[in-house]
């Protein structure tokens, strides 16, 4: 039994020793916990006081990395779908499958179209100018042929020279067939008293236009001499009925244009016809229109 008592005594001592060691370690651990707790409290106090940079909470960094990746993806997509402008036309690759070859072809077509539109604009402008020019010719022509008196013809010739051609100094001579000369009838821009009758058979440009035998046309030489920019014959058929001498431009005019020459060519022909018509009208006898007389004109 004594052996058992001794045996029982030793385990007890071991147990007590183990307990002492356990509690000793527990005490040390408890002190470490207290110390760590105090350190953490101090950190919290420092953070609250703003004295130290806060620690980034776990997960925030991962979230940010994820967001950056997402933005990079969006950027890449936007670059692929970059909107291109050619003139006023917007080309968006995503709408056409983002094929660069198609985009380049479309760009080239847009450039060509832009140039074509500009060219059409110029053409339209030229057509408008031509339209205005033709309207000018038509209105002058209408005015000349509507004239029933010499005063109307003279007025129209004056307005055309002044307002449509831009000549501020000019004279209208009319032929005296009996004496084979032209005499001044009206003058604009200077005194008519300075002008004299002029024989058709002189050596100058007057003789040249008198011998033309037809209206002056664009492309013909421009008969002129000192003090006269142009001699314009007024001719009805082959009959010279008058001459206009253009003497000075208006201050805002410096030269005759192609349009002016077209108007002058028309005046040369239809101004002459208008002058002859009012002359014939002034010397015609009044006669009723009758079937017999009209048929006689056609068939006899």
């Amino acid at each position: 039994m004594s052996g058992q008592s001794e045996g029982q005594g030793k385990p007890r001592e071991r147990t007590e020793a183990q307990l002492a060691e356990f509690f000793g370690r527990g005490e040390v651990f408890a002190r470490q916990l207290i110390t760590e707790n105090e350190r953490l409290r101090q950190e919290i106090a420092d953070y609250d006081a703003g004295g130290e940079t806060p620690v980034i909470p776990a997960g925030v960094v991962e979230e940010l990395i994820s967001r950056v990746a997402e933005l990079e993806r969006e950027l890449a997509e936007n670059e692929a779908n970059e909107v291109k402008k050619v003139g006023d036309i917007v080309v968006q690759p995503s709408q056409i499958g983002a094929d660069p070859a198609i985009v380049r072809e479309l760009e080239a077509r847009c450039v060509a179209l832009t140039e074509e539109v500009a060219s059409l604009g110029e053409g339209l402008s030229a057509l408008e100018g031509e339209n205005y020019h033709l309207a000018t010719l038509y209105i002058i022509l209408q005015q000349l042929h509507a004239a029933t008196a010499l005063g109307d013809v003279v007025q129209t010739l004056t307005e055309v020279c002044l307002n449509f051609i831009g000549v501020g100094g000019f004279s209208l001579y009319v032929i005296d067939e009996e004496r084979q000369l032209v005499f001044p009838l009206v003058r604009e821009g200077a005194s008519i008293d300075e002008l004299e009758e002029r024989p058709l058979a002189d050596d100058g440009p007057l003789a040249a236009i008198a011998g033309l035998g037809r209206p002056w046309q664009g492309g013909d030489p421009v008969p002129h001499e000192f003090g006269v920019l142009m001699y314009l014959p007024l001719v009805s058929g082959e009959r010279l009925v008058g001459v206009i001498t253009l003497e000075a431009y208006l201050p805002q005019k410096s030269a005759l244009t192609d349009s002016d020459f077209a108007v002058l060519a028309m005046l040369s022909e239809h101004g002459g016809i208008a002058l002859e018509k009012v002359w014939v009208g002034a010397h015609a006898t009044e006669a009723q229109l009758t079937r017999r007389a009209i048929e006689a004109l056609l068939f006899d």
Partner: protein
Amino acid sequence: MNVDRDSARRATVLVVDDSPPMRKMIVFALSRLPGLELVEADDGVDALRKIAGAQFDLIITDINMPILDGLKLVKRLRADERYVNVPIIIITTEGAAEDRQRALALGANAYLTKPIRGREVLTLVRGILEGSGH
């Protein structure tokens, strides 16, 4: 351009010139503006008579005219408070700088010299009418 469709009342323009072909050419040039109502007068007195009987949004006048010339017409209109703000364009053969200055000083809004180009008149009239809300 909204000279025609958008305005409650059609814009009305008076063209004053003693030269019938010149009036016709101005009217022709302006006929490119759709919806514009164009009235013609052959001198200043005729113009005053027509102005008294209608409301005009723009007056285009020559200077050299019998009875009442264009400058006197401008002066008469600017002296009447009813017509103080009606735009006036002078179209004339008088190309000297002093003629231009005199016309503008009397109250004309613009000054063009003959011979005119259709597009030039059209552009000026369109600009003035649009500027005045037509």
